[in-house]
């Protein structure tokens, strides 16, 4: 088990290392950062001074190593726009994003479980079809359009829930639902096919023959085993959530990493963009790593397949 965890850890770190190169190259390939920092009236001498001050006169390899070294200690430099250390901005925004992601994940689980199990138990009926339609609709509706409609109808006309802000639990409902519904389809489909397989297995038949109540067979015996594939794909759902959150946070004015990224990009605030990309990737990698370890723990066959 320990060997498996270590091997996966090395893989994740390698992936992150590649990403730092990509981020570094992208930031350098997009033009002279000094043109963004210095005023229009800056002289040649100002440029030379600033270049030396920021270390831009050194070789690319040196620059890259110092970028990685600083990033490891949490030093991403200063935001060009907010004139504050980038790490502070990340520290302010990250918890909001994580809370929204957790809420959205809960929403999608709360929708996917009943839908998936019902669809499997009532396979081929109208209930099955209705459950699948609800799930596929979420995947087919653009999140920003759902967001606009919800803001207009639920927050505007009906005034049931707040459209923006993140202080109260009620403010989580609309963005959380918009984000969560988008990933229900994949989860629901996995649960449905997993349940169909398990419900057909010998031990479920045995449980039924023994006289175990049907609801216990479905919700305890069968569901427990249908869960394994869902666990494996939790990492993928999470990364879809993170990506989609950029759009959802922007529409709902949610003070998270996604909106920070959008603001940083529209104002060409490169230190912030680098930090957001690396933080996001590190979180996605960490989640994937935990999911794989959890999976290997649940299902010993994985550890040795390697």
């Amino acid at each position: 088990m320990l060997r498996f965890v270590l091997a996966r850890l090395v893989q994740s770190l390698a992936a992150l290392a590649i990403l730092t190169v990509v981020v570094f190259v992208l930031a350098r390939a997009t033009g002279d950062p000094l043109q963004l920092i210095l005023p229009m009236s800056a002289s040649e001498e100002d440029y030379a001074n600033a270049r030396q001050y920021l270390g831009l006169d050194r070789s690319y390899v040196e620059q890259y190593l110092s970028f990685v070294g600083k990033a490891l200690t949490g030093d991403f430099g200063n935001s060009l726009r907010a004139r504050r250390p980038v790490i502070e901005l990340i520290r302010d925004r990250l918890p909001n994003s994580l809370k929204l992601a957790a809420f959205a994940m809960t929403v999608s689980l709360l929708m996917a479980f009943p839908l998936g199990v019902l669809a499997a138990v009532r396979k081929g009926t109208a209930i099955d079809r209705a459950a699948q339609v609800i799930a596929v609709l979420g995947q087919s509706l653009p999140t920003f359009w759902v967001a606009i409609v919800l803001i207009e109808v639920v927050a505007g006309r009906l005034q049931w829930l707040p459209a923006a802000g993140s202080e109260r639990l009620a403010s989580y409902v609309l963005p959380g639902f918009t984000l969560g519904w988008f990933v229900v389809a994949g989860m629901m489909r996995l649960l449905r096919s997993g349940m169909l397989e398990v419900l057909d297995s010998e031990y479920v038949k045995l449980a039924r023959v023994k006289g175990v109540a049907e609801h216990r067979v479905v919700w305890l015996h069968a569901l427990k085993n249908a869960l394994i594939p869902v666990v494996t794909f939790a990492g993928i759902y999470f990364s879809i959530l993170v990506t989609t959150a950029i759009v959802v946070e922007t529409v709902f004015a949610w003070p998270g990493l996604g909106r920070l990224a959008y603001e940083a990009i529209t104002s060409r605030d490169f230190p912030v963009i680098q930090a957001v990309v690396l933080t996001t990737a590190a979180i996605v990698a960490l989640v994937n790593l935990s999911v794989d370890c959890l999976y290997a723990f649940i299902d010993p066959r994985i550890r040795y397949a390697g």
Partner: protein
Amino acid sequence: MPAESTVPDALAPPFPALGAAPPLGRGRRLPFLSLTIIGGFVLVALLADVLSPADPEAQSLRARFTPPVWDARGTWAHVLGTDRLGRDLLARVIWGARVSLMAGVLTVLLASAFGAAVGLVAGYYRGRVDAALMRVTDATMSFPVILLALILAVTVGPSFTNVVIAIAVILWARYARVVRGQVLTLMELDFITQARIAGASAWRIITRHLLPNTLNTLVVLITLQIGYVIIVEASLSFLGAGIPPPTPAWGSMIAEGRDFVTSAWWVSFFPGLAILLVVLAFNLLGDWLRDTLDPKLRQL
């Protein structure tokens, strides 16, 4: 077919679990609704010049915010109404179909071709080549698509080409992963060993034996991804980093109508409906293809 190549081909049976589609029996009816919607939108996109009732970029400030025809204030001149600049919404939705479908199809073809090539090479050579390629694949998959596209849009400038490239640069990783997984299984089978004994080159084994056996999966994944790409493209246009105005793109049309939802709901509503119909049709078709061609792939 040249004589020397018949031996490995004759020895290569189709991989039964993946190659043979179950026959179309009862309960496997063609998804007519999806096919009709997709066919309809493809026709509209191809014939936009003929079908469009007006120039999608022609402004008419006097006719701004005309409601759809069924509203008391609506006119037949603008069936779906007009937007903030008095542009005809039906014409813009029709021209938008061309943009969205082109973006979806081009991006997915680009990504699948590259991803499949990487997956085939990684699965065929295994060992270090595989390990290196898979690390790159992992790194790519952990990069948020929308974030990269936003960066490109700001640095290089938003354009149709940049959107297609930005999405394809991330999306290929999924194909590489899935194809590699299948190739690893295929490589264990007898017909590959026999092809090698018969002296088939690496190129020949990859293109003639491995690729055809992954095609079903590729078709399913491509269909499912077109819908996703259309949504991502629309999201980018919505954020102002996609197809630049005044080209009619569904995402930017929704963004333009966003501030007027209360007084002129139709400006944002119709492009949203168009996205919903196309993406839903592709998703349903993809689901059907998966269940028909490749029931084992539950999660694609």
